[in-house]
């Protein structure tokens, strides 16, 4: 059984088209802010969130023992749309080098690595809207495998008009922020950061059809990995309305807490936001359960540092 890992500080931030908020970027040091203002929004969100948690890199500084994992539901799809529209309208001459270079979902990880001198593992993962906890899992795996002492974990999505159209056509819930990011440091990062909680191993899975057998097994695996039983934890879902599915999968009697935020749908950020909410409480450990409309499931036990 892997021992719990320390969570050191975290941030959650959302913005909408009606209420854009550039406070995340505005607070950055001048050089990083200038970069964030020039690049595509996924990279800017990642830089902004990292800026709340990490010191900028010194000149030429690259730390090989600290890395970054980005979790996302849709990656750079908004940037892809911007690039593709120009290509479709103008043919080959419309292909933009600046946009195309940003049409890789790991661009955000690359920006963070450069700005904050993180030369350890640089990974980007998606497991649908459970991408945040999938990122946490990948970060933990890197620390457990050795040669890495800390990871910045960020989960982010940018949802443009094309994204909203996709959500509607795919039958996902409506109502998600245009921009959303949550981030935390797992293990030991650069710079002194307080420990705010501890995290057990993440369990990942698939719903597995009617009755959600995969939900049951993912919950069971998360508890077993943390060395706990269901009676030892309070259960929390990361999206409003998911409590019904979790109760149905676990047999109806489970008490399930819902998230504090009002969004009908948070994407990859939901998992990390759920973990940060869980450790903000005190006392009983929380089992955070993250269900995704794509059928991905993730669960993890989190403890407050105050416990």
């Amino acid at each position: 059984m892997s021992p719990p890992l320390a969570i050191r500080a975290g941030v959650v931030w959302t913005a909408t088209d009606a209420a854009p908020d550039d406070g995340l970027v505005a607070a950055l040091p001048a050089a990083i802010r200038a970069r964030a203002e020039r690049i595509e929004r996924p990279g800017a969100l990642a830089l902004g969130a990292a800026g709340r948690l990490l010191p900028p890199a010194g000149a030429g500084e690259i730390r090989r023992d600290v890395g970054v994992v980005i979790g996302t539901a849709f990656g750079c799809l908004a940037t892809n749309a911007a690039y593709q529209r120009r290509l479709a309208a103008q043919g080959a001459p419309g292909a933009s080098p600046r946009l195309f270079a940003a049409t890789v979902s790991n661009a955000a990880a690359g920006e963070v690595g450069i700005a904050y001198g993180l030369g350890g593992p640089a990974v980007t993962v998606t497991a649908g809207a459970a991408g945040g906890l999938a990122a946490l899992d990948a970060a933990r795996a890197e620390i457990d495998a050795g040669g890495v002492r800390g990871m910045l974990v960020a989960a982010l999505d940018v949802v443009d008009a094309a994204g909203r159209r996709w959500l509607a056509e795919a039958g996902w819930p409506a109502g998600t922020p245009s921009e959303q990011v949550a981030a935390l440091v797992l293990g030991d990062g650069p710079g002194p950061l307080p420990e705010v909680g501890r995290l057990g191993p993440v369990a990942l899975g698939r719903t597995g059809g009617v009755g959600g057998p995969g939900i049951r097994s993912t919950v069971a695996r998360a508890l077993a990995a943390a060395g706990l039983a269901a009676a030892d934890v309070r259960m929390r879902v990361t999206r409003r309305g998911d409590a019904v599915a979790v109760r149905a999968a676990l047999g109806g009697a489970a008490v399930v807490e819902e998230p504090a935020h009002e969004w009908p749908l948070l994407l990859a950020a939901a998992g990390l936001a759920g973990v940060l909410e869980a450790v903000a409480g005190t006392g009983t450990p929380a089992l955070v359960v993250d269900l995704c409309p794509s059928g991905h499931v993730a669960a993890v036990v989190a403890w407050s540092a105050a416990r």
Partner: protein
Amino acid sequence: MTHVAGHVSAPRSHPVVTGTGAVTPYGGGVAALWDGLAAGRSAVRAIRGFAADDLEPGRAAEVPGEREDADPAGAFLLAAANEALEDAALDPAAVAADRIGVAVGTTLAGMRIFEEWLGGAATAAGRVAAIPYFAPAARLADAVGATGPVVTTQLACASGTAAIGVGAGWIREGRCDVVLAGGTDLLCRYVVAGFNCLRATADEARPFDAARRGLVLGEGAAVLVLESAAHAARRGRGPRAALTGAAAAGDAVHMTAPDRDGRGAAHAIRLALARAGRDATSIGFVSAHGTGTPYNDAMEARALAAVFGAGGVPVNSIKGAIGHTLGAAGAIEAVLCVEVLGRGVVPATIGLESVAPECAAIDVVRGAARPADVAACVSTSSGFAGANAAIVLERP
């Protein structure tokens, strides 16, 4: 033991490879891949699968045959997975569903569908669901009934190698008995126009060659069946290889050009070797990223020379033969490594005639295949945004 700063865990039980499958521009199957490489054939042609008259260069390595599936990238992956499962003599229904995982790398997923959909074409619900990056892995998981971990890795052109590393980790940690790990990508106007506008492409790819001018794109998929050694032994299946180390590292230098000194790539290789408990001198073959671009190949030669010493190990690249298959590349190259371990032959690097001076420090196999008794090998990949990944495969 290769030195890496910081604690490296003692090796746990390594996952084994019991089956491989591939769909490449040579056609379906691992045999077609090996035969094409052995024959020194290039699969690069003028693009025929989509409108390319205004694309310059307009050449790529396409998977031959008709596309009947509404989601071709997913179909490539399923075909490769089916071959791998048959090779492993493994029926997924015989494994507990939550003990099966799926880890897939891709850079494009359903981008061909996205091109049409974004333009306003009416698109069936099933095709819309195939657009996101997580879709191919989800489709494969649902096809085999897996309810264990299902993740898509996105490290640009290092996605496939990273996926194999992630999947191997699940088995090493005891979370899965079986993982289908690999990569898939499908050519489209979107990506060919993109690499063209970056001036990164050429009519032919000539890895490590003095006359190299750029990469040629390709498409395809590959899957490895990874199992715990105990699970394979219980069902009486001998392994084809062991996957003993995996690592990723960022350059942290530039968004589109690799670190000129290859420090990130070298670090990924060294960390993978350390996690495998191996010294660089024990490696008998390196499957290089070797895209044929001026910057990548020079960087990679420096990185490999730094890790393995000048001329220290035979190296090849298959991208001159089947193009750069993006998210599938690392997975196809892992399949190649399994073949090299078993056959004791390193295929020549197609497209290479005269090694560039800046690449002369490495021993790139060219002209003819080379017999080599390889006990352990490394596959390395790099990508945009300074991504690097490496895996270590060994004879069981």
